């Protein structure tokens, strides 16, 4: 017993010491972090003031026939003292100063344009930030690659376009997303073609991230989205169909109709039908009406929803039989579709309230309430 006892005591004490040491390390780390944050804040202020000066300094006008390098020489003369001061520092100090300077430049880059923006891009290159970040895009750690991809976009480094395009196929989704955002910043809407062509198995999150980019381009993005309807990847096609509905340009109607006719994927058919409904173009009426007979319920439901939006009063007779469906969900979708057709559909629903089938009557009542028709009636 004494030996085991001793071993256990020693183990318990060792573990207790370990806990205490960890606590001490945490406290020390917190103190260091706090001091570092203070230093960074101070340096940030210093470099922010210096950068403002660099950007606001008036440069002598260049002759019309001067070479482009003359402009760069002027920029170089502005940044030269800062470069010299950094070169004179010891490695650790230089690293801290460069971090602060880079942060200032990145922050400034987001708010300025014109000549000041060109100056900033030049500073990024000449201070070696672009090359540094390009090297980091090859890091083994995903978060470093993601950060490099983001920073390169913020730096406006066109030199990084090839590296960022390569990162679109990175195994980590965060890296892919940062590369995508940066490419869009550097290239504009044309980057969408590459992004949509390369994208595979888009998660909902990636689709949401991409949707914000696409929405910002509005109509300019439509040709790329139509092209993406031909993708072999289901997630990309669904995304393109959803975004076409959001943007709402009727140029998408024919490609969507073609897609519905040619695909055997019922999820894509259902989504495309919803998009056609939102686009509300009459050209799609016959195709949508045909799909009311689909054997796949989600396709039927999407067709009902779309028909109500596309056809107006002409859809009433086609939708009416679905009120008698045995499935509650079908009754409800048909009732809502009828309500969207207008006065005639509303009249059908009002009449349905007197039906013997209690469920149909109740659903008609609910939908009338949803569409405010009941209160108007009252």
């Amino acid at each position: 017993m004494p030996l085991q006892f001793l071993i256990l005591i020693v183990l318990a004490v060792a573990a207790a010491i370990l806990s205490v040491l960890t606590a001490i390390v945490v406290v020390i780390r917190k103190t260091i972090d706090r001091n570092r944050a203070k230093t960074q804040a101070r340096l940030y202020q210093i470099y922010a003031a210096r950068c403002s000066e660099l950007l606001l300094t008036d440069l002598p006008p260049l002759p019309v026939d001067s070479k482009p390098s003359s402009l760069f020489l002027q920029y170089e003369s502005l940044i030269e003292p800062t470069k010299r001061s950094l070169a004179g520092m010891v490695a650790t100090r230089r690293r801290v100063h460069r971090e602060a300077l880079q942060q200032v430049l990145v922050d400034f880059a987001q708010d300025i344009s014109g000549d000041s923006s060109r100056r900033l891009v030049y500073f990024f290159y000449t201070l070696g930030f672009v090359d540094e970040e390009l090297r980091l895009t090859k890091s083994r750690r995903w978060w470093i690659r993601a950060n490099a991809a983001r920073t390169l976009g913020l730096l406006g480094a066109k030199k990084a376009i090839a590296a960022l395009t390569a990162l679109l196929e990175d195994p980590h989704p965060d890296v892919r997303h940062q590369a995508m955002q940066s490419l869009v910043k550097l290239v504009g809407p044309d980057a969408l073609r590459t992004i949509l062509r390369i994208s595979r198995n888009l998660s909902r999150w990636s689709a949401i991230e991409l949707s914000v980019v696409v929405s910002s381009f509005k109509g300019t993005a439509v040709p790329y989205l139509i092209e993406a309807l031909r993708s072999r990847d289901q997630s990309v096609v669904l995304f393109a169909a959803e975004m076409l509905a959001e943007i709402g340009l009727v140029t998408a109607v024919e490609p969507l109709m073609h897609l519905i006719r040619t695909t055997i994927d019922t999820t894509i058919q259902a989504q495309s039908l919803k998009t056609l409904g939102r686009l509300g173009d009459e050209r799609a009426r016959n195709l949508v009406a045909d799909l009311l007979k689909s054997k796949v319920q989600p396709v039927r439901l999407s067709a009902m929803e779309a028909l109500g939006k596309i056809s107006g009063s002409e859809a009433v007779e086609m939708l009416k039989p679905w009120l008698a469906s045995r499935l509650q969900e079908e009754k409800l979708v048909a009732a809502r579709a009828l309500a969207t057709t207008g006065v005639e559909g509303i009249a059908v629903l009002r009449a349905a309230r007197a039906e013997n089938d209690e469920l149909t009557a109740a659903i008609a009542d609910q939908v009338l309430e949803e569409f405010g028709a009941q209160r108007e009636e009252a």
Partner: protein
Amino acid sequence: MEALVDLILNSYLVFVVLYFIGVNLTYTVLLAISVREIINHMRHDRFSNYRLIVQSELTPPVSILAPAYNEEATVIQSVKSLLKLGYGKYEVVVINDGSKDQTLAQLTAEFEMYRSRQVYNPRIEAKPVRGIYKSRLPEYKNLVVVDKENGGKADALNVGINVARYEYVCCIDADSILEDDALQKVMKSFLEDEHVIAVGGIVRIANGCEVVNGRVVKVGLSNQLIPVFQVIEYFRAFLSGRMSWQAVNGLLIISGAFGLFKRAAVLEVGGYKHDTVGEDMELIVRLHRFKREKRQPYRIVFVPDPVCWTEAPDTVKVLSRQRNRWHRGLLDTMLIHRKMFLNPQYGVIGMAAMPYFVFVELLGPVIEFFGYLAMVVLLIMGSLNLQLGILFFIVALFYGVMYSVGAVLLEELSFQRYPNPRDLALLLSFGVLENFGYRQLTAWWRVKGIWDYFRGKNAWGSMQRKGFSTSKK
């Protein structure tokens, strides 16, 4: 005879010491996994732009389900706070579970509710619905109040799931305070992985925090002892326990105070079980069971930073009832799903998570409690092996101190919600102090919970809500 008793009790103490060492090792492993997971989460979070969830039209809408029973003191403020969350499209469904006070009257008056003709589709069986109400005011058009006969929280949630319009349902307590971005953060897990069927967020204690208009504006610790002890317990449970189990898809509980589910998955398993007091845990275990039996890919996830604040009991009496109920719920769930226990068909759930919950969480307090009892008896008999006694105390106390301090440090390394250094020092001290009395007390309540369970006591026990309307409690 005396020698036999002496031998049995001393042997039991040796067993308890070995048990504590085993538990310590388990906790160390859990803590290590949690550290890794939290660091990964924070790295990932740096690149997450949650505003996108609010901005994008592709974000799926959510139905927030808030069951309310006699919540007249807090219901209006809670609902108003829920209606102001930072999220795209969502509805708030308040289920009045046959309250005997003015809960329903207050809601209908404040939000100008009218009786809607919405068709109720009871896909999960539950107590009858007396009416569905909607607001006449356009600013509250996403509020639905369901009035039903009393049937308990689980039954109310089942009605909420039946009424919910959207694909995702967020189950919360009516008095929970969700942070503005909480819904965005839990939703992200679903959006990143289509196999995710449920996500839980961290629940923190609001006692001592400053609450203004249903929002926690300043985080702090309560002046009372009981809530501060619970802060440490919540750290242990959420930051260490749940974070580590979710890493291996072995999460067995998502707190009833805040969880987001795929509605279809909950409907598939028949919703909440209404005849258990641990309905939140039981649902999660049933989801695991169903998915594993059907061999369908799935994940149940815990996200450590979407915060839900809740009012914790501040008296020994209420706390004892709560712990008693939690333990009965745990026991009930383990017995209902005993088929999964040590059954390789259920993978990590059957072979690791359930054995952990049975041997550490469920039986731990019993083993500990009888350890103290054996010590006292041996002391009275004068035959306590001194070395063993010292060892027992060292290991028993250390086992709590290490895990509690570790959990506080984990919070400090990651989210640092308590900015005041005084609070951090206080939490670390309480992590040590709780092992001298508080832990033994909770062990006793849990032992009593097991006893009550086998005696057929199945009550919930009530907690008088004081409301968050006062700015600082």
